[in-house]
């Protein structure tokens, strides 16, 4: 007789945790070697050589990946599982962030402030869901974009939002500033032998652990939900609305429930973000982040939460490392100029031999063009080039993502599998006899 419910039996949550921690340690160790050509000292203001500088890269990277991972999980609930195209996810994230920040400014402790943020976001989600979820998919996408942008504009214009804090200076464009609870409570450096870990790093590490725990809890919750009959109905609505309705499922009601639940989770992600980033303003929630989340779930695998974890880490890895290393990339490319110049000279010489059009073709030298593109363009766009290309490649060659959707496993499936295993075993015995 099995005592534990089906989802915790053989669940690979520990494997995911190990993968998460080991990739954190590996990246930190990798960055601490001087093997890579980039010079990360440029980014780090501290000059003490004993301080493990790579933590300045890996701590924010994993925190970002964790927090945006929660948001990506909530987007996956809408897009990958229920089939609601939400292009305004960052708006809900922002509501959660502001609501939690305001509750925190009212001196509520965090374990009350974050649920307040979740409830407020869920309520906004419900208000939006009632009129919009009856719309067709493409119209819904347009409406959600508009809502996300409207919320940002409203928060930028309304200065009174900061009223519990300071009536004169904040709110509106300037946003809110709250206290960093972890950094203010941990003030002493950690010394292990020769290595000194700064107090701020210890505090950030504590926060990262909290983020990881919340992330994994949300992941587990959603796994249970997807493998329940409720999750099955959501997937059936995504696959075929007509059939789901003709089997007695109230589509609109289920879509509203999924949308509200997803908004609550986005509010949770926003609340954690508020406590992490400490100072935030409407400008910090550009629509770019919504598409960022979409790229995370498309590359990871629509409808598969394990893919979301991978995608979030992968995409934030590119984004964050590029941010850190950006100033070095032009110099790095510049090193190759002496090798590339002869090639581009040869190109010009060959094409200028053609009569009439030769001069024109020679001026279209692709090598110099790309060289100048990389050196002239602002470095923060590099990851966006990469994401664009990745997205196109994935949609053409692997539309189901790195981790394709797996069939759900409910009690019935597992019971049936065990039956067939027993049958196979008994038939093997018969064969042997």
């Amino acid at each position, binding site marked *: 007789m*099995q*005592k*534990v*419910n*089906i989802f*915790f039996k053989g669940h690979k949550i520990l494997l995911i945790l190990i993968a998460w921690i080991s990739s954190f340690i590996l990246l930190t160790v990798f960055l601490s070697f001087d093997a890579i050509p980039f010079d990360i000292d440029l980014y780090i203001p501290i000059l003490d050589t004993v301080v493990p500088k790579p933590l300045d890269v890996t701590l924010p990277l994993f925190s970002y990946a964790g927090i945006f991972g929660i948001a990506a999980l909530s987007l996956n609930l809408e897009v990958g599982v229920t089939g609601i195209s939400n292009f305004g996810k960052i708006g809900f994230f922002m509501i959660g962030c502001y609501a939690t920040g305001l509750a925190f400014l009212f001196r509520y402790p965090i374990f009350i402030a974050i649920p307040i943020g979740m409830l407020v976001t869920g309520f906004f989600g419900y208000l939006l869901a009632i009129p919009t979820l009856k719309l067709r998919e493409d119209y819904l996408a347009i409406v959600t974009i508009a809502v996300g942008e409207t919320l940002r504009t409203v928060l930028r214009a309304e200065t009174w939002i900061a009223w519990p804090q300071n009536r004169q200076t904040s709110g509106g464009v300037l946003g809110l500033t709250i206290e960093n609870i972890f950094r203010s409570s941990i003030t002493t450096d950690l010394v292990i032998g020769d290595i000194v870990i700064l107090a701020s790093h210890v505090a950030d590490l504590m926060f990262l652990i909290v983020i990881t725990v919340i992330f994994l809890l949300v992941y587990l*919750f959603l796994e*249970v*939900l997807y493998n*329940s*009959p*409720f999750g*099955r*109905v959501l*997937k*059936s609505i*995504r*696959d*075929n609305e*007509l*059939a*789901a*309705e*003709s*089997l*007695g*499922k*109230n*589509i609109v009601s289920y879509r509203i*429930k999924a949308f509200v*639940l997803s908004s609550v989770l986005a509010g949770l992600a926003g609340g954690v973000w508020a406590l992490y980033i400490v100072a935030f303003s409407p400008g910090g929630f550009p629509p770019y982040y919504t598409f960022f989340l979409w790229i995370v779930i498309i590359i990871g695998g629509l*409808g598969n939460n394990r893919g979301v974890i991978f995608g979030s880490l992968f995409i934030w890895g590119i984004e964050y490392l590029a941010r850190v290393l950006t100033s070095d990339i032009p110099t790095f490319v510049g090193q190759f100029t002496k090798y590339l110049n002869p090639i581009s000279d040869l190109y010009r010489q060959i094409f200028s031999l053609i009569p009439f059009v030769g001069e024109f073709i020679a001026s279209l030298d692709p090598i110099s063009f790309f060289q100048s593109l990389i050196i002239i363009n602002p470095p923060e766009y590099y990851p966006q080039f990469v994401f664009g290309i990745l997205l196109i490649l994935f949609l053409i060659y692997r539309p189901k993502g790195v981790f394709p*959707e797996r*069939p*759900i496993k*409910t*009690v*019935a*499936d597992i*019971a*049936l*599998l065990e039956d067939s295993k027993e049958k196979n075993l008994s038939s093997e015995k018969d064969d042997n006899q």
Partner: protein
Amino acid sequence: MKVLKINVLEAQDVNKNFSGLQALRNVNVKLKKQKIVGLIGPNGSGKSTLFNVITGIIPQDEGDSGQIYLNGKTTNHKKTHELVREGLVRTFQITQIFPMLTVLENMLLGAQSHPGENLSVVLIDLIKRLFKRFTWEASEKQFAESALEILRYLEIDHLALEKAEVLSGGQRKLLALGRALMTVGKVILLDEPVAGVNPTLSNQIFEKIDEIRKDDTTFFIVEHNMDVIMNSSDEIFVLSKGEIIAHGSPSEIQDDPKVLDAYLGNIEKD
């Protein structure tokens, strides 16, 4: 003992037009309890439209008229999923399956009033019984057993754990039929249930339908396979150009000149 003679399903003077095209014209259909009723007619005669109107998939617009009664109660302005709760189920001519779910999951979606499909039940279970068995697991197992029984009868039980997208056309028909049986509906409308299914199995399916109808179920079936429908139905309605042109037992329909006209064209006028 007094027997109540209520028609389980009744369509009264149903008119339906699609921006000027009159798809149904004064259609009157009455289905008695525990009968297998056939609906035949040439292509484009409005058979599927009648099904859509009855099940509420096509809403009644202005200019459409007529009443539909389920167990003596009018069904106007009721949504499809509400009618399923009251026991009116249908399948589609173009099979509608859930390709990304397994065959068994497809079947389980037919289950009505499953406690696990209720979000609050799932959430409360999660909080109260985190490391114990969930309350809905028992009913899930029961539904799975009856689903497997139906799959076994339809001879697709070996595919139970495969994704439904791998099924062939005939197997998809069987799956859709199985799902309709899974809902335990009292009135089941089947739109070409055995098109693309091999003859032996289609005869078996109709035997099964005959068996199920004794259990207080009424079938209304659109089918182009004349042998099967003539053998198994108690009553047949013939639709042509949106009108019921004939109605009666299979033997009456076979001899009706109007029906021959509708299928073969009017010979006398030529």
